[in-house]
């Protein structure tokens, strides 16, 4: 199914500053706190393979920031640069006010102790009980035993696994293992939690419960979360902002509702397909990739500003190209209505398509050509 980006390229680039402005206002400005993580033009290559290509990111304190991309996009490398498990070739990374490139190994270990990390395969020590696994970060940091015990039980309570304290990880389910992983990552009270595909090895139901737990902990402990995933559903469930990574470059970023409503790249649209309901079967079957004589074009419009649609609909009603709404869905993301409307238009009428695009883009929407159907 071919999709053609009709929107002018310049429209995409001018949209970025607008998003930034909105976000600052939304985040209790005027005095914006320094970001907890700041990546400036970070690059990293493995031999001739470029894993990260001038990546710049700012992650705000207290937010849940998602990084999405297909496998091989550089997500893993990117998240590992934040706790210096992966070194970088060029650029600068500042975490909690400390420039990682200026630190020696001992100082880096100090930074890492203030960053929790959870993994796709949990990475729990099989020879230690749940209690000992969760206690480990405190033990490594040389905290006194009495302090350790209360902290471990507090975290086990938070993740709902106090009764499993004496059990070895092999006896736990995947979801329980990840809860132990989360408890271990947060027991030393880090300001930042990195999540490396933490739900990718879990079934959908467990995934949801782990994501809800992360969201809760983000609220109760105020811990900033950076997560990488290849699933849009994860982003949609808990993230505040999202960056789309492709071949080591960030191709799009913004608040989740905005990226969902108005994806600006083909990759993002493709990733979104998994979370958007498909067109009705009957419509799908008639869809062609080439224009048909006397046929109609299907145009899908993503938006988050549906209150402005009345104007669009009024304009459409009077149009000579007989626009019809053939499919629509509206969801709520971060409390905003986000969705798509699919129109069919008589594309043979000159300029209809362009006019529609122009009309809709005045409402800052984006138009995607899904294909063509018989008239």
């Amino acid at each position, binding site marked *: 199914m071919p999709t053609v980006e009709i929107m002018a390229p310049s429209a995409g680039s001018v949209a970025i500053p607008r998003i930034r402005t909105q976000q600052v206002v939304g985040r209790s400005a005027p005095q914006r706190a320094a970001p907890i993580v700041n990546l400036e033009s970070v690059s990293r290559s493995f031999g001739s393979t470029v894993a990260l290509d001038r990546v710049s990111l700012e992650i705000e304190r207290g937010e849940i920031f998602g990084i999405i991309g297909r496998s091989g996009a550089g997500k893993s490398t990117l998240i590992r640069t934040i706790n210096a498990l992966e070194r970088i070739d060029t650029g600068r990374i500042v975490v909690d006010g400390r420039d990682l490139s200026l630190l020696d190994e001992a100082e880096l270990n100090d930074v890492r102790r203030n*960053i929790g990390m959870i993994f796709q395969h949990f*990475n*729990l020590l*099989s*020879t230690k009980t749940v209690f000992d696994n969760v206690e480990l970060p405190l*033990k*490594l940091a040389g905290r006194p035993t009495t302090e350790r015990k209360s902290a471990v039980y507090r975290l086990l309570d938070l993740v709902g696994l106090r009764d499993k304290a004496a059990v070895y990880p*092999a006896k736990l389910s995947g979801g329980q293992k990840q809860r132990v992983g989360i408890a271990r990552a947060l027991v030393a009270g880090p300001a930042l939690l990195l999540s490396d595909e933490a739900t990718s090895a879990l079934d959908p139901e467990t995934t949801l419960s782990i994501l809800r737990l992360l969201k809760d902990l983000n609220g109760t402990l105020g811990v900033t979360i950076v997560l990488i995933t290849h699933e849009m559903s994860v982003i949609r469930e808990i993230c505040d902002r999202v960056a789309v990574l492709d071949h080591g470059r960030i191709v799009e970023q913004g608040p989740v509702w905005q990226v969902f409503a108005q994806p600006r790249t083909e990759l993002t649209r493709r990733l979104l397909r998994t979370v958007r309901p498909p067109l009705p079967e009957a419509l799908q079957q008639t869809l062609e990739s080439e224009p048909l004589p006397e046929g109609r074009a299907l145009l899908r419009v993503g938006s988050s500003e549906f209150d402005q649609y009345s104007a669009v609909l009024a304009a459409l009603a009077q149009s000579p190209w007989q626009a019809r709404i053939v499919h629509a869905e509206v969801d709520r993301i971060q409390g905003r209505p986000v969705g798509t409307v699919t129109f069919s238009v008589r594309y043979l009428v000159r300029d209809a398509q362009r006019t529609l695009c122009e009309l809709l883009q005045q409402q800052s929407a984006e138009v995607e050509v899904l294909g063509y159907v018989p008239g």
Partner: protein
Amino acid sequence: MSPADLQLFLTALGETAIMVGISGLLSLFFGLPLGLLLVMTDKGGIWTQPAVNRVLGGAINAFRSTPFIILLVALIPLTRLIVGTTIGTTAAIVPLTIAATPYYARMAEMSLREVDHGLIEALRALGATRWQIVREALVPEALPGLVTGFTVTLVTLIGASAMAGAVGAGGLGDLAIRYGYQRFETTIMIGVIAVLIVVVSVVQFAGDRLARSLDRRR
């Protein structure tokens, strides 16, 4: 079998036990750090040192490629330097240890390599030092394999100790050669073989049991 024969057996068993026991413990003591060093200094290890890795690997290979009977005599000057004598049970412990140490180092290396890299990464992410990674993750997680490797090393040492008779170290192998072979006392030969089978079986059984009880991955 006469009481005198029985006495011979007990003495020989004792000598074998001392030779294998002491050189076994020493090879564990020296071999485990060497195995750790091999894994740590290798590419992608927690202390990448290609030069150290190559030298260490080369030295281990050199010792491992020398047949024990040759090592036994070739090391005589070193043995004299360390224990002051070149004959007897004590003298055999030096070459046995030197032969078994690189052997166990390779055994240890194998099981340490099998530790899931994700665990090491998790520890690094927690800000663990190299020593903490070794103590909290590498060694405990590899423990079943380290025990199995030690069991194999002990069994190999029991075999190698048979040659130690060449330097008058005694032991079960020496008994079999001198009495069973050279004096045609078939009962003693068969007796030695039977005792060796029992000893090896007991060592293997105990090692397997211990390794299994340490394995928490199930």
